[in-house]
């Protein structure tokens, strides 16, 4: 261990191994990930590019550091209670993020996971939570430790007619008489982004949980010819895709397995 160049070489090789494994490896596997067909409930293309306002909102989310308290990743059923808590219908997988500009899966939950926030609320329901999370009328009313993002709103005098965007204020967070709370563009974008977060469809690599209605329908549709248990295998082995599968009730699910095998291992 007295030879500088030799130590350098050893370090370089160590770094190269790590780099190839953790940077190049996933790159080779996932860089070309494309839209896939979902396996349930209906074979549709997933994911889709988010609307423009949501894309702007993603940058608001990034700039405000929302990811320091909120994750955007649902763990599989055997890890934690994410699914049992209703934070999602399935685990998050690589496909869910391919159209994110800045991927912010987060590392800490001081607030709930938001991977499926769009399933729980629409943009109009997000706005009051930004104005003041403690006034939101739900089970945890008044107990949230989230800061209020009042700077995303204008409190202004009502003009001739109320602004169409103004918060429909409940008694808890009413503006002073004659005033209205109007979200700024950043608030609207952020709300659109949060409401756009939804991972509700099932993919080849994230199939419906066994026993769920979607899973029953899927196995009924795809296993009929072989009787096997591995649902996707039947579909991809048959060149004709779903068309070779006998139509069963709920048979619209049949073509689904002909999906993402090429992209995802």
């Amino acid at each position, binding site marked *: 261990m007295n030879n500088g160049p030799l130590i350098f070489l050893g370090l370089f090789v160590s770094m190269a191994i790590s780099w190839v494994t*953790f940077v190049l490896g996933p790159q080779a596997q996932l860089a070309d990930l494309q839209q896939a067909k979902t396996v349930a409930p209906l074979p549709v293309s997933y994911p889709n590019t988010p609307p423009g306002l949501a894309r702007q909102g993603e940058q608001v989310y990034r700039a405000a550091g929302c*990811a320091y308290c909120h994750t955007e990743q649902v763990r599989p059923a055997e890890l934690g209670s994410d699914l049992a808590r209703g934070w999602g219908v399935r685990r998050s997988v690589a496909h869910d993020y391919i159209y994110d500009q800045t991927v912010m899966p987060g590392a800490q939950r001081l607030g709930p996971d938001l991977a499926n926030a769009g399933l729980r609320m629409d943009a109009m329901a997000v706005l009051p939570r930004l104005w003041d999370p403690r006034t939101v009328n739900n089970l945890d009313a008044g107990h*949230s430790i989230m800061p209020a993002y009042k700077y995303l709103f204008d409190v202004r005098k009502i003009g001739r007619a109320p602004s169409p965007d103004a918060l429909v204020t409940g008694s808890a967070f009413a503006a002073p008489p004659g005033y209205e709370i109007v979200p700024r563009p950043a608030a609207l974008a952020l709300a659109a982004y949060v409401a756009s977060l939804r991972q509700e469809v099932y993919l080849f690599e994230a199939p419906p949980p066994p026993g769920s209605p979607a899973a029953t329908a899927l196995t009924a549709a795809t296993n009929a010819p072989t009787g096997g248990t591995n649902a996707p295998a039947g579909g991809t082995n048959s060149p004709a895709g779903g068309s070779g599968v006998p139509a069963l009730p709920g048979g619209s699910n049949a073509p689904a397995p002909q999906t993402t095998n090429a992209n995802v291992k």
Partner: protein
Amino acid sequence: MIATEVTTPAPVSRTDLEATGAVPLLCLFAGAAVWLLLALLLALLCSLKLHAPALLASGPMFTYGRVRAAADAALLYGFGVPAALGVGLWLLCRLGRTRLAGPAVVFVGALAWNAAVAAGVWAILRGGGSGYEAFEMPGSVAPLLLLSYGLIGICGILTFRQREPGPLYPSQWFVFGALFWFAWIFSTAALLLLGSPPRGVLQAAVNWWYEHNLDTVFFGFAGLAPIFYFLPKLTGRPLHSHYLAAFAFWMLALAGSWGGIAVGAPLPAWLVSVSLVGTVLTVIPIAAVAMNLYFTLKGVGPALEANVCLRFISAGLLFWVVAGAQQVVGALPSVGALTDFTPFTTAQRDLFRYGFLAMTMFGAIYYIAPRLAAAKSGAPDGRWKGWLAKWHFGLMLAGVVIGYFSLLVAGVWQGVELQNPANSFVSVMRGSLVGLRLSMLEPLLLTLGVIAFLLNFALLLRGCCPCCRREKAIGPEPRKEGV
């Protein structure tokens, strides 16, 4: 300056050697300490927001997420990297019995680095953060960071190359490794995350890989270097085994660079498994270092307490072992299922960054800075105010321990409670607020400790006034030289 010293054939004294690097290294240390103070104040603000969410919430600048990101950036890039570089360069000079190569370049690099960090932290507070944890520096600042790091790093490598021939000491490997490691991981992250971001979760993979390498390998190397130097030196014991040290070094480079991906992450299963294997394997270097230094120090006893530098460094070593062990435990799927995303991981991270990194660096600086100041001024050894240093140590130790245990307990409690989906998320959060709020004492006590250090540092530099004057001479006013 160079001409007179090169012509002297006699072996140069240690003081002469150290005088060369005094100004740039003291500059690195001063900048690091000021940044740490700022990082702690920002972290304190974050903690206060857990008491009063409405605090400073009227504008976007001091919103929790931004302050959190800015605090991390100030800690890692303002404090961590410059302190590691300063201590590392000094070790390369001392162990290689040579001068610092290109002190003026290091000085310029240090100024540029600090300017870039300032611009970066400001940008983060203005909403320009990159969105990648531990790598929030915006794309406009990262090239300057890389450039100024390169200036300092190249001088480090040149210093290493011009060492006196002879066997290398473990600390030299560690510094040498750290110098390259940061350049590699930072340039990878900058190119991939800021230059041309890859698609989807690949960004997260690169981000997690970067953060893990930054902590475990770069800061690990940078902190172990002074540990391996000062513990044997100040206790007068030879290092137990160089082989064991070499083994730990290579294992840390190999296994420490694999990890950072949590078990439930939306990434391919093989990657998650490889990360788990690498993280678990870091048990080996941790055990090797702990054993090596245990046998080195066996029976030293109270001597460890005699010297403030030793106190800091031995505490740093202890915290490194604990933080490393906790990282391994937390990576196990059965534990991670409970503790991921909870303050359990924050406890580990803070223990590593404050308990290990900051304490080790301060221990080293307490030894190095007075010698640099004295070498520069030609005055007898500079003196720290002993009582201030002891306060600094006591405050830091208390802060780190209180913060660690309150976050650890809060994290484990949250993890266990959240297992039951009937417990609402917000109620569990509120239940653990005691721990989260108690952990506010950590940045508070550490802030006081760093203030004690800065006071001490200022007194030290004032105590050698010629040194201060010469420091100024490097600036635009050389006419003061003759004073």
